[in-house]
């Protein structure tokens, strides 16, 4: 089996825990009593630039299968209206994330349905 060829396989680790402190992920409190449009703002606003770069990567991938302009049109024109078909509170949350980050709604939707796209 490919992965069993050295050097890709290790003996079972016994020394990885505890992991370095700086690898521990922080926590964001999502207040479900807030309006769906507002509850993610505190998290996504400071991360908007990183999200934009990552979503561009996903769009580039879609662009491999259809041409790049078509891909952008597809995302903006087809996926943004899809938001209206999602159940609440998800509709409102997606709109809130788009507003807070300045990322077009269609691109926020693409990011959120990427699992369904990618399983093919």
């Amino acid at each position, binding site marked *: 089996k*490919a992965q069993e060829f050295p050097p*890709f*396989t*290790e003996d079972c680790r016994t020394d990885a*825990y505890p992991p370095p402190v700086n690898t521990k992920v922080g*926590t964001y409190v999502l207040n479900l009593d807030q309006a769906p449009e507002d509850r993610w703002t505190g998290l996504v606003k400071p991360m908007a630039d990183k999200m934009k770069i990552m979503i561009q990567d996903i769009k580039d991938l879609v662009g491999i299968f259809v041409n790049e302009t078509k891909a952008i049109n597809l995302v903006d024109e087809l996926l943004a209206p899809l938001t209206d078909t999602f159940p609440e509170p998800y509709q409102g949350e997606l709109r809130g994330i788009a507003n807070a980050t300045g990322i077009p709604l269609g691109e926020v939707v693409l990011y*959120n349905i990427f699992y369904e796209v990618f*399983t*093919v």
Partner: protein
Amino acid sequence: CTSLVAQDKTGDLFHARNLDFGLFLGWDVKNQTWALTERLRPLIINVEYQQGGKTVAKGVHFAGYIGVITGMKPGVLSLSMNERFQLEGGFIGIIEWIIGQRDGQWMGFVLRDAVVKATDFNSTLQYLTSVDLLAPGYIILGGNSSGEGAIITRSVGTKADNVKMLDPAHGTWYLVETNYDNWKNPPFFDDRRAPATKCMNTMSQANVGLKGIFNVLSTKPVRNLLTTYTALMHVRNGTLDTYLQYCPQPCFPW
């Protein structure tokens, strides 16, 4: 991805997962890493869902992604979802949704609802076994009482192809799921199940705990170049700890 549910000798349950993502989505030749994997890592965050000032659920999110693929309800259950590849995958579900056929539901939203609204292990197991889904997947569920663990192999629609249960009374004190049907052999080019199984057996039930499970998930090739994080969940204590994972070369690409 690799997910584990394990029960220690006292009946306490632990659930952990590696989230691997980004295969074929851009290879960084200079750094020998997957581009999308590297982009995702800084977006990882634990989210504590609160209502009326109380924590009702916890999840691991990528900032801006509102669905749940790793989550827990303290004292009730934990879940994780691993990707299942099928020709009849989620893409068809998306097209059906766009043309107005909207019986199915989106994986991330379904799992978030399941975690936040969960009241007990069995009813959640039943719900996730039969809920109409737009995409296939492996849903790994852990509970709070002895024997509460399951791998639900889901197809598109309402079909569950298989449900494999934890069965400590008959020696099955842990479950391992990667990205392949657990009743078949994984492909020769991507077998993380065998190393994970070997390391779980080496660890033994006597050493089940956050430390032992983290060590298993940190062993190459269970940890690989696609691994973004390891999440450790202990339902009884209500803890969900997430650690960024890196895989220095030499490391298998998936």
